[in-house]
């Protein structure tokens, strides 16, 4: 990877270069970080650590795809973190073999988890579409509601004691590849298929680009909105369920601030807040970038307080490199 990129840098004066860059968006910033980290710490580029990073970003990555789709549509979801908690708790209650749970079959837990996310998303989407309240407010409301429900359902306590059938999807691997990564890849493929191969995906772009024109073009805008929120909710629910399986437990305090990480992944990947613009591939790169930065700083042993300063600066710089070079600046 390092070689390749040096090659690119060598051809910097090439006429096609600008185009290449602008098409590959944030990739450049990402590659710069990768190169730096592989030079700075020997452990970074080993297979174990790569699997590690991928596994770490998987759950939040699913949410990033979900919220990325919403942002493309001109929406947003602030309830991601608390939906993670709520789905973890509902799925956990179903399967937990402890006093707080029903000890049902793992499949039921997974279905309930995804369903919880879908319902939350559906409600947000329905209010956004029907009542035309800004998505920011609606999902700020659902954020608070979900957190409260998670606390109520779990009586304020973490839930553990999950059967191994449930934790399987979080902890085990298929060959060398952990399940969370496989599920994340499936989500990416689904996202790509939806956004590029299904009419609904194109409608989502259309609504995000110009809602009036979308309506005039015969698109049922409300239906598109509700559908996008349902899908995004399902992905967040899946993320929360896998996270609970990975942690072998769920707590009502889980996932605080995840919405910001998920949204950041999408925005760093070039999704535009004003809607209509954004690619699934770039959302994935944005997600990976945050994951790599977090992992890299742990490996480099950056001092605690400086870490935040460094992290903030790197995010700005990485995006800066991207925008500068791609001529968007």
């Amino acid at each position: 990877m390092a070689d390749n990129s040096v090659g690119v840098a060598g051809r910097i004066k090439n006429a096609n270069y600008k185009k290449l860059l602008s098409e590959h968006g944030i990739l450049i910033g990402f590659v710069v970080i990768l190169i730096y980290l592989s030079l700075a710490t020997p452990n970074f580029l080993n297979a174990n650590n790569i699997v590690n990073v991928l596994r770490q970003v998987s759950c939040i990555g699913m949410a990033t795809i979900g919220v990325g789709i919403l942002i493309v549509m001109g929406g947003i979801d602030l309830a991601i973190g608390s939906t993670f908690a709520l789905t973890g708790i509902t799925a956990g209650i179903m399967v937990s073999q402890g006093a707080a749970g029903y000890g049902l079959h793992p499949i039921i837990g997974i279905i309930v988890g995804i369903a919880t996310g879908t319902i939350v998303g559906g409600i947000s989407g329905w209010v956004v579409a029907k009542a035309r309240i800004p998505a920011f407010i609606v999902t700020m409301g659902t954020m608070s509601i979900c957190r409260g429900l998670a606390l109520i359902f779990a009586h304020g306590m973490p839930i553990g004691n999950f059967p191994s059938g449930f934790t399987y999807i979080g902890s085990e691997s298929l060959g060398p590849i952990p399940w969370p990564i496989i599920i994340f890849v499936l989500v990416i493929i689904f996202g790509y298929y939806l956004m590029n191969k299904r009419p609904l995906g194109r409608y989502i772009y259309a609504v995000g680009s110009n809602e009036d024109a979308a309506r005039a073009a015969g698109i049922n805008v409300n239906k598109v909105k509700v559908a996008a929120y349902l899908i995004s909710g399902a992905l967040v629910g899946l993320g929360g369920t896998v996270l609970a399986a990975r942690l072998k437990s769920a707590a009502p305090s889980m996932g605080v601030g995840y919405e910001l990480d998920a949204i950041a992944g999408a925005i760093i990947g070039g999704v535009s807040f004003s809607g209509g613009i954004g690619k699934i591939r770039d959302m994935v790169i944005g997600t990976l970038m945050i994951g790599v930065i977090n992992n890299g700083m742990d490996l480099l042993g950056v001092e605690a307080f400086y870490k935040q300063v460094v992290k903030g600066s790197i995010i700005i710089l990485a995006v800066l490199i991207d925008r500068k070079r791609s001529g968007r600046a």
Partner: protein
Amino acid sequence: MEMKQISKSFGGVRALEGVGLTLRRGEVHALVGENGAGKSTLMKILIGLHAPDHGEIILNGRNMTNVSVRDMQNAGISMIFQEFNQVKTLTVMENIYLGREPKTKLGNVDYKKMYNDSKKLLSELGVDLDPKTQVADLTVAKHQLVEIVKANSLNAEIIIMDEPTSALSQKEVDALLMMIQSMRDKGKSILLISHKMEEIFGVCDRVTVLRDGQFIHSGKVEDVTQRELIRMMVDRDVNELFPKQESQIGEVVLQVKNLSVKGKFQDISFELRKGEILGVAGLMGAGRTELMETIMGARKPEQGEVYLRGQKIVNRMPGDAIRRGIAMVPEDRKKDGVFLKLSVRDNILMSSMKKCIRGIALNKKLQDQYCDEYEEKLQVKCSSSAQICGTLSGGNQQKVAVSRVLNSDPDIIILDEPTRGIDVKTKSEIHRLMSSLACSGKAVLMVSSELPEILGMSDRVLVLHEGRLTGILQREEATADRIMELAVKTMKLEA
């Protein structure tokens, strides 16, 4: 003012190549060319909005290359944009004075003075508008008028007008042309971009022609004929006359009965037949657009019914109408017509995505096929179908909007100002297309503020005045005088 050897590229697209332009004091200079020839781009460079890659701009002997918009304004250049550049959340007066608000001694905005001044400016040009109206509430035509008032108020030496008349009806066009002449008489220079021959030959002194970003010709208007000019623009002969073919007019497909929307139009009834082109004429603000939107289901009628082939239909949203085979090209293309951030391909296919599905996914080949078909038919000038629509020239955006609608295979096509901002060549293409659509048994409802278009294309003409139907004319009886008479009916009565 002189522009020398101006070149400009956007990414891979070469918009201008070594173009020169000279503007003399006290002349009206026409800038013409096909859609996408680079006219708007050249003007944006002139006012400092784009930096040229090469070339220089000399103003009264001073080099003014690469200076800011504000500097150009101060130097006495103002521009009326083709794509209305107004701040929709501000009021009319705030837009007129944006960036140069009258101030009180404390440096605060002096609203009283702003109100009085803009009221005066508006009434000077005969625009009936409260300066405190929100721009977002204005119709396209009023936007255009506000732009004109604004440019006029800058008291500039050079005024650039990028297709100022494309959204105006005859009455306003005449007033604007009068205004242009009086400005010239005051020694100002006017650069007029237009696709309308009667304007070029009516008021302009000199003309410059661009084609594909290259300079073709510059000279006195008297020295060229209309035919020569068109030839220079499009590199071949185009008959500007509308090639209306006779079509077989069949049974009634759409019937509108006593349709009303409060405050917009009242009690409108008419029939549209298979194979017919029904023109809808009227002055600006007559309610034509609202009538069409109501038929499409974008507005809720207060009373009245719409029948499709004898069956009563209720369109709750445009999607319903499109499913029933009624589609419309909207008037305000930036607001309703195109997706500026999406590709040309997405735009063209947006109303007919379902057509492109094979199995469970959108099929690339089918998409390309439909896309190419219309790109070719309407000669959309773009680098590829992946080009972002917002970077197309104004006229090409219009073509994209028309393509989208035709691509949804409608039986009834509603066109609201279909050739707004479209060059002569494509205009005649679109007219040819309309004709052939009618011949193939489709019904066309065409709203237009251009009388020649109405007269040339319509089988029948429906005239509205202030929301009321004042007459339906057969092709034979439709003359410019007759239509204008019906369109200004009550005014005449009052007079």
